């Protein structure tokens, strides 16, 4: 298997989907000639033509409307929101419209739309470019929110998202785009949606995380290993809906949990995970649930971003607290 970067895996998935299915379209601001501001769509317009890979005027709600309308003509739109901080401009298309249309039409219409968008901190972007807003969209019934944490998943989950007949918000971690490389299987394959993955086996404690939190959790797990603590890391992959089964499995296995997210404490998916555990698996717990999240400030500007972001040391410390509890 070839080692590829996260962004190359994303591009490859779109390439394969465009090749396989003529109904797949890719559009958004600057996705054409320029190949997107991160080059995630680099070369796709040259390969598949302007009819299938095209720029839009600068208006996110227009892009969302385009996607919804195109489904009536049997297209499968992959729309890009240039940065997920701009999702506020297209909230109605996502949360008010596409998420509700299967329901609205009593199950007679599919909404096979993928909303691709980069998110996440650590690269000193200007404000509104790095926010973790997954928790907001995860509250919307009728839509999936998928956040791959490695290149193989990025490709396989994106292909699954494109095949899905329901809308998927597909969030790509900016920091991981180029910093994260990994083995990526060749050719067309899909990785199942709604299924978490154990990315590090362990027995003493469960670290549950997703997206940009996963590499932090993995680093902590390695560190903990050196201290003789065996941490299991569960990567949610799909953050809405939650894979409650897998969460239950690891919690009942270890009895101790630390939830790790890049989002602020008051945002993100952490609270949902914790609520499921406290409602369903509380008997298995040997300690309070630990949580590592960013502080409850507005997402900070570039300069102090790295101080603000969660760190594997914090995860290690929290795990020690939870493991040594009682």
């Amino acid at each position, binding site marked *: 298997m070839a080692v590829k970067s996260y962004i190359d895996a994303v591009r490859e998935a779109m390439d394969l989907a465009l090749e396989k299915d003529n109904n797949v379209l890719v559009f958004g601001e600057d996705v054409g000639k320029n190949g997107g501001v991160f080059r995630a769509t680099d070369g796709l317009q040259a390969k598949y033509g302007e009819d299938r890979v095209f720029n839009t005027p600068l208006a996110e709600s227009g892009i969302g409307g385009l996607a919804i309308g195109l489904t*009536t003509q049997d297209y499968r739109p992959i729309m890009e929101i240039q940065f997920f901080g701009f999702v506020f401009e297209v909230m109605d298309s996502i949360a008010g419209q596409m998420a509700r249309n299967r329901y609205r039409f009593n199950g007679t219409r599919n909404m096979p739309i993928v909303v691709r968008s980069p998110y996440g901190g650590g690269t000193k972007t200007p404000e509104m470019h790095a926010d973790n807003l997954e928790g907001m969209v995860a509250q919307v019934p009728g839509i999936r929110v998928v956040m791959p944490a490695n290149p193989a998943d990025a490709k396989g989950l994106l292909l699954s998202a494109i095949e899905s007949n329901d809308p998927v918000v597909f969030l790509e971690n900016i920091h991981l785009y180029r910093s994260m490389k990994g083995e990526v299987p060749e050719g067309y394959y899909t990785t199942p949606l709604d299924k978490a993955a154990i990315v590090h086996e362990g027995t003493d404690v469960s670290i549950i995380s997703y997206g940009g939190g996963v590499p932090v959790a993995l680093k902590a797990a390695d560190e903990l290993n050196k201290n003789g603590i065996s941490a299991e890391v569960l990567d949610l992959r799909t953050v809405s*809906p939650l894979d409650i089964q897998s969460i239950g499995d690891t919690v009942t296995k270890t009895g101790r949990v630390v939830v790790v997210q890049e989002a602020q404490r008051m945002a993100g998916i952490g609270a949902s995970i914790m609520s499921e555990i406290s409602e369903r698996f509380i008997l298995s717990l040997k300690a309070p649930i630990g949580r590592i999240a960013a502080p409850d400030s507005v997402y900070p500007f570039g300069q102090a971003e790295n101080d603000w972001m969660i760190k594997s040391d914090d995860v290690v410390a929290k795990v020690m607290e939870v493991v040594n509890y009682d």
Partner: protein
Amino acid sequence: MRDVVVANKEILDFDNQIQIQDDVFPILHILDSDGEIVDNESLKRAQLTEEDFITIIKRMLLSRQLDIRSTKLAKQGRFGFFAPTAGQEASQMASSYAFKDDDWLMPGYRDIPQIVVKGWPIWKAILWSRGHALGNVFTTEEGKPVNSWMPQIIIGAQYVEAAGIALGMKKRQKDAVAYAYTGEGGSSQGDFYEGVNFAGAYKANAVFFIQNNGFAISTPRAMQTAASHLAAKGWAAGVPSIVVDGNDPIAVYLASKEARAWATSGKGPVLIETLTNRLEAHSTAGDDPLRYRTQADIDAAWKKEPLIRMRQYMTSQGIWDEDKETAYITEVNALIDDQIKIADKVSKQKISDFIKNTLEVPSYAMVEQITKFESEGK
């Protein structure tokens, strides 16, 4: 850069510049309020046969009867949410008459009659009004698809979505258009603007209607914008945009027909502002027009309503009379009675069905919920 053909001082004459709007947007007008044709050439251009005239007036009457009955039934609690359409029959029925089965309709909450004449059974419209999702299965009685979205509640959203349909039709090289309706209030929304602008930029197959009926709930037209013509807003996106006497069925039809022809020719969308009137309350949900509008204003508007002139003109042409009208209204009323009965028989929705319609593949928690509600027969 073009040559300076206009003196700079004229450019800086701001007062004059906005006044030009009246010259750019004269009003298309063929049949006047007394039922007289003011422009025979345009009448000819409309190419309406006797049969067409009869169909149009019947649709207008159908719409009016639906309005009367729905309003009444809504007061008795037998109809759900309803937004009255009286006064807008030319704007709704003569415009939609210019479109074909393959065209896609993007209606607002007040555009029920257009969906009905496209083949949506009235009993489904009733179910929709009651908030029953079976109404939203857009097929005819025979099961043929009706190319219509469900009436849009979020004002403006139908415009951006119409742009998507229109672009798709262009890509598929279809001889079809998306036609979308909003009100003059709706024309203030960002989505209205983005929709027209996107369709224009892609030269997509769309026809946009602004039904300028004078009010957005209680807010008068003048409050929405300083523009003297809402059509200017389409034109500003490089989209041909015209103002039509919205109480004149012939003018509305002609404009719509020509707009459709243009939009299917690859030249891009057209926008039509119909000047009309909302003669009744905003909706059956407790609106009282006299809080914000005088009875005199309403009375004056009733004098210009489109059925009067259409009836008068067709009578003068010997193709319509009182008997025909009475017979048709009786027929329509019987139909509506019938359709209400059908709607009443449809069993109430189940919560488990709601959950099943949320995602094609339900989540873990949803499966639990479906099981629970099903076990309770809900």
